[in-house]
């Protein structure tokens, strides 16, 4: 396969590989924490991009997969005593199954109706989990510390979690690239441009959308487990935050939907901005307002996002900036 040689494939993977490698070498806790947050943002944005960028379906409630998968994985880890990787993968699998079931119905909706439905699903899931005994109801769950012992204590457990997140992020980038440059991906982009015309041309839109939805749900499910394992506790309010969903959208929009580098650039850019606003004395209280203002400016003036704008302006870079 000649795409192994294409720069658009290598650049994002190399960036993440080197980044993680550096963090591991330096082996400093604070650097790892920062990198964790950033990689998580990149991974979540990239997962959403698989749905949003390729099919054009806007999910406003995508965080629901993070929450449901996270709860499942955390439950398996803490209450059932599973190890991290199987639990996280199970979390992802549950999220994918929910996406498959719900998607079969909800993906029949278009545009804003679909967006609203995803908000509804997120709220329903949050309300449901608040009532669900095994998941701790409204109080949530706290980590059973023996789960950390399995990895040699909390400190080492956190490093394992980081490594797993690092690997998953690279897998997401790989999957994004493979989908984009496959026949399946061509069908998705046809759906994005004109779903009815795509179907007339033979694209099995319902099935294609459903599969894409499931792929885009699997990864947040895995990541949710990792995040909550790292934090040591979780409650319904944390797991289904609509704001996090919106942030995922903002990150993808900021960087440019439909590209591989876009969500990554957007995630890093947004997190950096957020960090700056939170710590700056002037902007601290107005952090949300400033994030909103930036989002507004992007929507109004640079809707293709940073990478999209660059690709458009400098057409020769299109081969490199995938």
């Amino acid at each position, binding site marked *: 396969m000649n795409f192994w040689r294409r720069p658009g494939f290598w650049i994002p993977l190399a960036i993440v590989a080197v980044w993680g490698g550096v963090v591991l070498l330096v082996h400093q806790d604070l650097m790892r924490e920062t990198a964790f947050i950033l990689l998580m943002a990149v991974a979540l944005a990239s997962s959403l991009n698989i749905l949003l960028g390729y099919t054009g379906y806007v999910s406003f409630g995508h965080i629901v997969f993070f929450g449901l998968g996270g709860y499942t994985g955390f439950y398996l880890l803490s209450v059932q005593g599973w190890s991290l990787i199987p639990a996280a993968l199970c979390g992802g699998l549950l999220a994918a199954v929910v996406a498959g079931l719900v998607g079969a119905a909800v993906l029949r909706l278009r545009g804003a109706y679909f967006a609203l439905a995803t908000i509804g699903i997120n709220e329903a899931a949050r309300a449901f989990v608040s009532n669900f005994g095994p998941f701790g109801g409204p109080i949530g769950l706290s980590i059973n510390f023996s789960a950390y012992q399995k990895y040699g204590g909390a400190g080492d457990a956190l490093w394992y979690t980081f490594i797993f997140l690092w690997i998953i992020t690279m897998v997401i980038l790989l999957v994004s690239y493979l989908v984009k*440059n*496959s*026949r399946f991906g*061509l*069908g998705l*982009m*046809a759906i*994005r*441009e*004109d779903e*009815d*015309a*795509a*179907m*007339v*041309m*033979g*694209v*099995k*839109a319902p099935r294609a959308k459903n599969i894409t939805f499931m792929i885009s749900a699997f990864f947040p499910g895995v990541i949710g487990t990792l995040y909550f394992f790292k934090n040591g506790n979780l409650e319904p309010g944390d797991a289904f935050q609509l704001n996090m969903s919106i942030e995922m959208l903002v990150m993808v929009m900021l960087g440019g939907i439909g590209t591989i580098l876009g969500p990554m650039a957007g995630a890093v850019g947004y997190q950096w901005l957020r960090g700056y606003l939170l710590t700056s004395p002037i902007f601290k209280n107005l952090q949300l307002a400033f994030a909103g203002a930036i989002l507004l400016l992007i929507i109004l003036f640079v809707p293709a996002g940073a990478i999209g704008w660059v690709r458009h302006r400098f057409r020769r870079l299109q081969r490199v900036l995938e």
Partner: protein
Amino acid sequence: MILQVQEVSKRFGGLQALTDVNFDLAEREILGLIGPNGAGKTTLFNVINGVYTPEQGRVLFRGEDITRLPSYEVARRGLARAHQVVRPLADLSVRENVMVGACFGREHHGLRPAARLADESLDRVGLADRADQPAGSLNVAQKKRLEMARALAARPYLILLDEVLAGLNPSEIAAMMDTVRSIREDGTTILMIEHVMQAIMSVSDRILVLDYGTLIATGPPEEVANNPQVIEAYLGDPNLTARLLAE
């Protein structure tokens, strides 16, 4: 018979769009479908290729009942369509547009063979030099050719052409008609809707006339052109039709 439309009726709320439409289409035939605006021609196309499901009647394609199949299933069985209101996939390149046709049509190609087929198809309609441009940047006539190329790349048994000549100047029309004839030479059957009378009368083996959702005439062009009902409903001046056929 490659296509058999049997007693098809389609209603939208209070509007009866098609009533009891019956016709057959033989392989390698060019069948022209004419009629006043609003007669139901595009609706009939939509019923045939699965966009709408008729309340009554059946559509048989190569012997199989495709009446209730969704449009993508119909496309996969080798029925392609070029729309009246062009629908390019704007952000994708011209080549990618045609590749969609090749990848998801009858033959189910992978990306590389599809790209080659796409280039052949584009060559045929004269768009080869624009293969890498975004499809949204083409003008209307070029978009119409793109529709055609996309439909052809799917290597269909039957192609539905919906007013592919609209908006074209006389030399473009002549070129398109040559393309239509060459498509038939290659073995594809054609069912086409057209308003440009001279063109459709000259290229079709048979003509169907639709008026208010019912077929009011079928037959060879000369016969249909002289049918008083057709003249009254659509063509207007009987002497004009004689002149059109003479050209």
